[in-house]
């Protein structure tokens, strides 16, 4: 095996065999299994705890009306967890009983001269506001029916009155996706942005740590006398990139199997993010491309910055600008999810450090012509090549420099150390 292959294999195997890899992989696998079975898990708790005997007991106190049976019927349609009973005692006594916890809520109902229902809902806490909302809807229906009775309207006439408007949106700009498409795209793009952001952050940090560890344990001087720096950098980057892909592959496999085995219906919840009908395949392909580009760009940067520090403790400091760039890119991308057509989103999508996240947001959210992502990809690839070339120079000098400082002016010194002075 050649040297490049050896370093690549070692970087890969060392990470794969490490305990930390095993632990993060397992934790995220569990998270994925949890998320895909979310509905079954929550119903597991609901099914045993809430539904059977623990109903929400509402006592109705009426002064001059008699709607309790009607209310009970209407509420049953809306929410089976609410149990309505008529209150026989005086209001003061009922309030006392409520405070003693004999039931959950007190609804006192009154009717005005004009035929309006005045209701007052009294409960220990207002957290269960879904119940009060359902009660309000039920009362509204009762009030409408009573008004219709007084006006002698038929049921059909009443339905005509209550008919909701039909309201649909569409954009006249050709590149824009329809509102429905946007909502579908947004979920997938959101998830992929997050995946790209997290993996670029984590794996580039991994590379920098690896380089800094080799340097601080001083094994670097042997390596650098055996293998050219540019081979070392890219062998490590690809090795750790493969670690990342292995992890993502495991998670994707687990996710797909878990979805297929899951008893949940494939509607709503997390599945609405993965509606594979509307051009989401191309979004996923773009996601993979931009993940690879972003990874290479930031990993190269992290590798040569890692070569500047003498101790791994100083690593955070030199990586700060890189982290700011990644986080900045992510913020722009998340902003771009809401307003993908904003001018500064368009501009920043061509800046190589932001391209992987921001241009991805644009291709995911808009129907932009192919040359736009193609140009941005080209610019990013060029940046990677330039960074790789420049990084190898810094790396070569940087790994031989030992000192306390870890500032960015060391880059200059490192380049000087590695270049021929004439």
């Amino acid at each position, binding site marked *: 095996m050649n040297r490049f292959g050896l370093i690549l294999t070692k970087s890969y195997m060392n990470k794969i065999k490490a305990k930390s890899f095993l632990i993060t992989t397992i934790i995220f696998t569990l998270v994925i299994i949890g998320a895909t079975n979310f509905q079954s898990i929550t119903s597991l708790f609901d099914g045993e705890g809430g539904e059977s005997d623990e109903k929400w007991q509402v006592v109705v106190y009426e002064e001059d009306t008699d709607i309790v049976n009607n209310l009970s019927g209407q509420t049953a349609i809306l929410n089976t967890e609410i149990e309505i009973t008529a209150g026989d005692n005086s209001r003061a006594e009922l309030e006392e009983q409520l405070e003693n916890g004999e039931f959950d809520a007190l609804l006192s109902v009154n009717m005005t001269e004009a035929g309006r229902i005045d209701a007052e809902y009294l409960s220990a806490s207002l957290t269960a506001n879904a119940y009060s909302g359902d009660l309000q809807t039920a009362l509204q229906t009762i009030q409408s029916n009573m008004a219709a009775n007084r006006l002698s309207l038929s049921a059909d006439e009443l339905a005509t009155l209550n008919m909701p408007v039909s309201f649909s949106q569409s954009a006249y700009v050709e590149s824009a996706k329809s509102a429905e498409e946007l909502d579908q795209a947004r979920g997938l793009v959101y998830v992929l942005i997050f995946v790209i952001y997290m993996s670029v952050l984590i794996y580039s940090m991994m590379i920098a740590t690896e380089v800094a560890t080799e340097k601080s344990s001083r094994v670097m001087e042997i390596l650098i006398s*055996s293998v050219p720096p540019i081979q070392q950098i890219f062998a490590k980057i690809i090795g750790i990139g493969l670690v990342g892909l292995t992890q993502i592959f495991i998670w994707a496999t687990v996710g797909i199997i878990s979805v297929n085995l899951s008893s949940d219906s494939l509607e709503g919840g997390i599945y609405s993010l993965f509606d594979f009908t509307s051009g989401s395949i191309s979004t996923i392909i773009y996601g993979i491309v931009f993940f690879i580009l972003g990874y290479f760009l930031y990993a190269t940067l992290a590798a040569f910055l890692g070569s500047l520090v003498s101790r791994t403790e100083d690593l955070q400091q030199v990586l700060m600008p890189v982290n700011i760039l990644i986080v900045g890119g992510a913020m722009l991308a998340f902003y771009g999810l809401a307003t993908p057509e904003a001018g500064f989103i368009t501009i920043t999508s061509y800046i190589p450090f932001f391209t992987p996240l921001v241009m991805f947001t644009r291709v995911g959210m808009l129907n932009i012509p192919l040359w736009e992502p193609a140009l941005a990809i080209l610019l990013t690839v060029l940046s990677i090549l330039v960074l790789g070339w420049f990084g190898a120079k810094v790396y070569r000098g940087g790994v031989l420099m030992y000192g306390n400082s870890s500032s960015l002016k060391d880059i200059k010194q490192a380049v000087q150390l590695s270049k021929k002075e004439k």
Partner: protein
Amino acid sequence: MLRIDNVTKTFGDYTAVDQLTLSIPKGEMFGFLGANGAGKTTTFRMILGLIDMTGGTISWNGESIGYHTSNRIGYLPEERGLYPKMKVKEQVVYLARLRGMDKKDAEKELTGWLEKFNVPEYENKRVEELSKGNQQKIQFIASVIHKPDLLILDEPFSGLDPVNVELLKKAVSELKSQGVTIVFSSHRMEHVEELCESLCIIHRGSPIVQGKLNEIKRDFGKKNLWIKADFELEDLEALPGVVKVKRLIGGAELQIENEEVSQEILSLLQPKGFIRQFSLEEPSLNDIFIEKAGASYE
């Protein structure tokens, strides 16, 4: 033949190595002496092509040294370093393979070397579990396992106990007898005196003494004279031909211009009383260094 021709290295205004010219014949052991910061490591890094020269040329058997020659070159850096978490075997085999060695051969060689150093049980230990001296043995093995033609050892004996120094010296001598060209640096003069035929003393980037050990001593001319006597040794400084006098209990150590001076001193002292010891010795490298550099070495 390793040829270093007029090599200079400057870092900004600072000159680390100044017009160094050396040639080391194949199969020779060459000592490179100098205080800390004299430019030894910088010179080695230039030989290995890790840093570029400001001026001059370096060649090994007529070709330049670089990554294309790394399979034939062994290097033990001054700052020892191995992967602390990796097992000895994994690690040495990995480093050997990076220098173009076959996995099986590397494993076999490693076993042989560990036995030679009396530590066969370390094969499956993690490096961080070993003592510093033992880590150094492993590091030495890593630098020679691929059977290089040219071996560069930067301070190979520092930090080792006397027993291990002897072990390592023996290993280095064996490699030399197998025809390996060895360049090693040290700040311990006696190691160089013991092992090398040729040497170079470098001081602030420039070579101040260089050549074959016996020629250097011969050309230096001055000798050391040890005297122990039962009477007071007075006025030695005033004698002609005496360069330096260092008083010791019951005697003195003198540096004299040449060996004839010793006989004059002997005839002067004899009438005065009983002389217990009177010995004429070769100057040590340390004496030569102090003379040439005009400053104490250590």
